[in-house]
């Protein structure tokens, strides 16, 4: 392990180099460009044995690594802002195909007005795309998240692509001392970058497969149900990888959230990304003034860590009651609230229903043209009546999957 003075982008590039992807394809865009430049140099210098493919667009970049992953190898791409939105079609495609791609996104504002500076509207616009989403606070965490993301994405229980987010400029372009692990350490932590024969979603000449097939109404729902179920369950493997990483490298955070001065905090700010560092500083200042301030940082937004958020705010370890909660994000969902606020408040409703508010159940139906009949609507009302009488019901219910949830 060596300490190097690196920007967030350079830390990501080193994390990728150490993870040994076989194929890298990316289209440069501010403020992600340095990642692509460093990786191109690493391939040129022989430090990374990968095919580096120059593509004509972000859409092509993700499509290309998707095809490479289908051939059974580890891949990497990176983008930002308009580029991420241009990729949008391929994001849903890769998530539905369950290819374990890792992508770095430099969080940047969306046009118009044209703006190249940092905010989180880009990745939050695609929060429903089926990708795991993590948000780094520091360059060190960015490097570590890249390595961890491959372990998470390629886990057969997860098999879901991961988007690692860094705040544009504030994190991508600022420098800090970063522990860069040795290659042998990372090799011992990650599986081979060549997937085993017969790995789901892959094919070769000896094992011809129809990939990315059609599924009609009904069948489509099962694939989407599995995608959702595996994403929810991914919280387990994410925690396992975090704990293994701490043991292996001697640093890191275990869990999808991180608290700072949280257990006795009366005023809590919930946030994500690099601004959490600034919040820590203000929490320290307020504490010296006698204000019980605290921070709850969301490391992952997908899967959403509902249980961890509720435990952090209302768990038995708390020594004081939370008096007010603020949600700080670089995003607005026009006409309502910021996306993270909507996410956190949906989780809070689960805590609220233990008191004055009625249970609220999400019926997911009609996916891929699935028919919703009168009898189904009647069953929804029956479920509501049972929930109203105090029966515990799953809060998200897929039509047609009642036997499985």
């Amino acid at each position: 392990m060596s300490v190097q003075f690196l920007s967030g982008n350079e830390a990501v590039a080193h994390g990728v180099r150490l993870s040994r992807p076989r194929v890298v394809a990316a289209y440069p865009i501010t403020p992600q460009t340095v990642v692509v430049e460093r990786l191109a140099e690493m391939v040129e210098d022989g430090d990374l044995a990968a095919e580096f493919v120059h593509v004509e667009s972000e859409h092509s970049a993700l499509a290309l690594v998707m095809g490479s992953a289908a051939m059974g190898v580890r891949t990497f791409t990176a983008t930002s802002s308009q580029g991420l939105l241009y990729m949008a079609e391929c994001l849903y495609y890769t998530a539905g195909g369950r290819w374990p791609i890792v992508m770095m996104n430099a969080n940047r504002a969306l046009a118009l007005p044209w703006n190249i500076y940092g905010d989180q509207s880009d990745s939050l616009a695609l929060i429903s795309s089926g990708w795991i989403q993590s948000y780094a606070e520091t360059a060190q965490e960015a490097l570590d998240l890249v390595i961890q993301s491959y372990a998470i994405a390629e886990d057969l229980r997860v098999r879901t692509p991961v988007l690692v987010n860094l705040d544009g400029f504030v994190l991508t372009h600022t420098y800090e001392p970063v522990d860069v692990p040795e290659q042998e350490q990372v090799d011992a932590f990650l599986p081979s970058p060549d997937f085993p024969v017969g790995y789901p979603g892959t094919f070769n000449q000896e094992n011809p497969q129809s990939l990315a097939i059609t599924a009609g109404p009904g069948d489509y729902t099962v694939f989407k149900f599995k995608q959702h179920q595996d994403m929810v369950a991914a919280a387990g493997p994410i925690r396992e990888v975090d704990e293994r990483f701490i043991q292996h490298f001697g640093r890191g955070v275990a869990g999808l959230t991180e608290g700072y001065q949280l257990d006795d905090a009366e005023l809590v700010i919930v946030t994500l990304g690099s601004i959490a560092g600034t919040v820590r500083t203000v929490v320290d200042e307020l504490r010296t003034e006698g204000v019980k301030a605290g921070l709850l940082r969301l490391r992952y937004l997908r899967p959403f860590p509902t249980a961890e958020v509720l435990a952090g705010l209302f768990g038995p370890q708390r020594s004081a009651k939370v008096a007010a909660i603020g949600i700080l994000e670089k995003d607005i969902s026009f006409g309502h609230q910021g996306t993270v606020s909507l996410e956190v408040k949906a989780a809070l409703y689960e805590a609220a229903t233990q008191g004055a508010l009625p249970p609220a159940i999400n019926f997911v139906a009609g996916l891929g043209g699935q028919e919703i009949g009168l009898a189904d609507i009647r069953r929804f009302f029956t479920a509501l009546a049972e929930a109203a009488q105090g029966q515990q019901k799953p809060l998200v219910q897929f039509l047609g999957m009642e036997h499985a949830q």
Partner: protein
Amino acid sequence: MADQSDWKVRPFQRPKNPQDWPLTPQCESGYLATSNSGWRTLWPQILDNCNSCGLCFVYCPDGAIAKGENDFPYVLADWCKGCGLCAKECPKDAIRMNEDDQK
């Protein structure tokens, strides 16, 4: 000429438990998991005045027409969607669109 028996649908046996479903939308190549022709209402009947010119084979947008003995065309029930393009293009009016009796 390929063996027509290879071109059938091999129905997908749906497991009860979603965990037993394939993780990714994929299957062994070379067959359909479900019939592609469920919405067909018309079915092309190839008449005796066909001279096996092969135009219907070329024009069929779904590759649902195959060449049989002496290149005489025949229609594959699992792929034909009943669009009638073959009947429209046939220069001999040797294809007649009938009510579908193949289901």
